[in-house]
């Protein structure tokens, strides 16, 4: 294992007790059964990648589609779909030896929580997630996106199932 792989591992394995891993903005987290990756979303998107055969997966919680022109280096890759999706794929490969052809994706979030804001970042984010997953040849098998309320997402790495609840909505399983 080289230094870069060691760095990625150290950065991505900060687990809470009880197998729950909390995923914040710009985080890229991976794990395996029986861990559960958990996050809340507004206009951000959670990209959940899973390998059924190995029962391993990961979650990216990105906030915007692409880095701003003045921010082309030295930022957290997980902030953006353009850089976060390849980062998640790389970490899954380096930690578990999973090839991207073995992965499927589920995406959640992209809501518009702030009333009266003209530019809908959530929509842009959803489009970016779809675009970059397509570029890497990863099929999206489930999604719940948009709306005006937040999302609570629990990604079970034992089954690959995602429990998703919108505010004031029922818990749905994907």
């Amino acid at each position, binding site marked *: 294992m080289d230094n870069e792989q060691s760095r990625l591992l150290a950065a991505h394995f900060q687990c*809470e007790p009880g197998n729950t891993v909390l*995923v914040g*903005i710009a985080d890229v987290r991976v794990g395996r059964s029986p861990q559960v990756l958990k996050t809340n979303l507004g206009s951000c998107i959670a990209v959940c990648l899973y390998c059924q055969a190995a029962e391993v997966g990961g979650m990216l919680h990105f906030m915007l589609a692409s880095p701003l022109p003045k921010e082309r280096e030295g930022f957290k890759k997980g*902030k953006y779909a353009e850089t976060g999706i390849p980062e998640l794929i790389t970490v899954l490969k380096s930690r578990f030896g999973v090839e991207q052809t073995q992965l499927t994706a589920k995406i959640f979030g992209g809501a518009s*929580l*702030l009333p009266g804001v003209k530019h809908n970042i959530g929509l842009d984010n959803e489009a970016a997630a779809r675009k970059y997953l397509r570029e890497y040849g990863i099929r999206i098998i489930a999604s719940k996106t948009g709306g005006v309320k*937040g999302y609570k997402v629990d990604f079970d790495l034992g089954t690959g199932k995602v429990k998703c609840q919108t*505010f004031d909505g029922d818990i749905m399983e994907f």
Partner: protein
Amino acid sequence: MEQHTPVNKYIRMVSQMSVEKASAVLGKLLKNDAKIELENVYMSDMSAITSKMNASGERIIGAMIDLTGDTDFKFLLFVNDKDSFLLTDLMLRKPIGTTTAFGPYVYSTVKEIGNILASAIAGVFSVDFKLNLKPTPPYGMHDFSGSIFEEYIMNSQIIAEEIVIIESVFNVVGHGLRCSMYIIPVDEKKVLEHLAAI
């Protein structure tokens, strides 16, 4: 995991004075023994602070306000659903227990208190630190704590990953009511430059 870094002493001083002013205003507003206390001023990684908020999973009502002018700050006040009913009764001078469900009065109460506190803080910046700021009308939000906090962080800082967070809580004595108040300077360096110049 939380990774907090101490912040500049001038930022801490400004924070303390702002919170003291807001506390005095709140006490008068609620005509009660209400007190806001500065809980912490720290620098945090955006992932760490939002992970922390995701852990609670509470349903909250929040008021988000921009303080704009010589430099920009982002203000957030929030309270959980149950405590928002109590806050509404106190604000409207109704017997405790009158408000039992979420509605326009609760929404307006939280937005109004947010507006008043943000204005008080803008006043401190203006009078004591010669930083002219004006509060925008509040955005009211009723959602998961993690979702609201995510929007707050996104709106505060999309370039820097280390964020200065001024975190306060207020308690109304005798009622067990607890609200949280956050202020984030959008450009910490600009604030420090200004403070150094006065």
